[in-house]
């Protein structure tokens, strides 16, 4: 089970109302390499991976939900008091007519989240390489998001999230090394 903690992992700030950046941040909310995809990918793979690395998938998957909440917080703060005129000026009126100021699990282009963004092959090496790739892709997405804003507070939160991808990638690489090791195990067949 999970227990909710009434705090963010990192103090998220934004320094201005910016509907355009809220639209772009949806890439990490409901996009292919976003935080929702990451959380669901790892928490689903953990049932069919050797016990030695279940804990890692479990804990990184859980942390991804904290990151999803940080992205949501950025979007919330960037759009909370945006007027319909500001929304139209930012070119987000297509989102607005369906969702108002609600967030939704779609990417920056409005394509809804789909389970085909994630994989579960059941082969531990295949799954961990998918996870490493997912972390590097998310890291790259954060770079391109940082490139698109001059808001120092928003950049600060995005840099934190980008660094987390670096650490998660490291841990998944270590997991591969753990599974590669000869465990001198008893022959079972």
């Amino acid at each position, binding site marked *: 089970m999970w227990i909710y903690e009434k705090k963010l992992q990192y103090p998220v700030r934004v320094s201005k109302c910016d509907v355009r950046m809220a639209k772009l941040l949806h890439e990490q909310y409901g996009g292919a390499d976003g935080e929702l995809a990451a959380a669901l990918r790892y928490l689903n793979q953990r049932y069919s991976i050797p016990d030695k690395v279940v804990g890692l998938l479990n804990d990184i998957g859980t942390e991804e939900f904290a990151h999803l909440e940080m992205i949501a917080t950025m979007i919330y703060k960037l759009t909370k008091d945006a007027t319909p005129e500001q929304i139209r000026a930012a070119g987000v009126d297509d989102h607005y007519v369906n969702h108002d100021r609600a967030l939704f699990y779609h990417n920056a282009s409005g394509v809804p989240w789909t389970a085909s963004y994630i994989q579960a092959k059941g082969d531990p090496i295949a799954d961990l390489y998918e996870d490493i790739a997912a972390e590097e892709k998310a890291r790259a997405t954060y770079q391109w998001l940082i490139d698109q804003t001059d808001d120092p507070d928003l950049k600060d939160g995005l840099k934190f999230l*980008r660094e987390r991808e*670096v*650490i998660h*990638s490291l841990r998944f690489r270590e997991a591969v090394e753990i599974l590669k090791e000869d465990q001198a195990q008893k022959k079972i067949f």
Partner: protein
Amino acid sequence: MATFTQYKVYYPFVGPCDPCPPIRAKTYNTPPQLYVPVQPPGLPQYDPYTALKQGTLWPAYYSPYDGRIESKPGE
């Protein structure tokens, strides 16, 4: 720890039929986990506030990014 740089530079071919002023030097990121993919024990740590700020407890795995580094178009 192996020496490394956090990004690498490459120089794409510039053709006579490219309409935009060429960006001659482009870069891509090569963060530290690529070089030390298994963390050795006993690495130095940041203090808790700095760790939170940097997004990691481990200076060896800190990867700064403050916007794309590449040459200006046409230069």
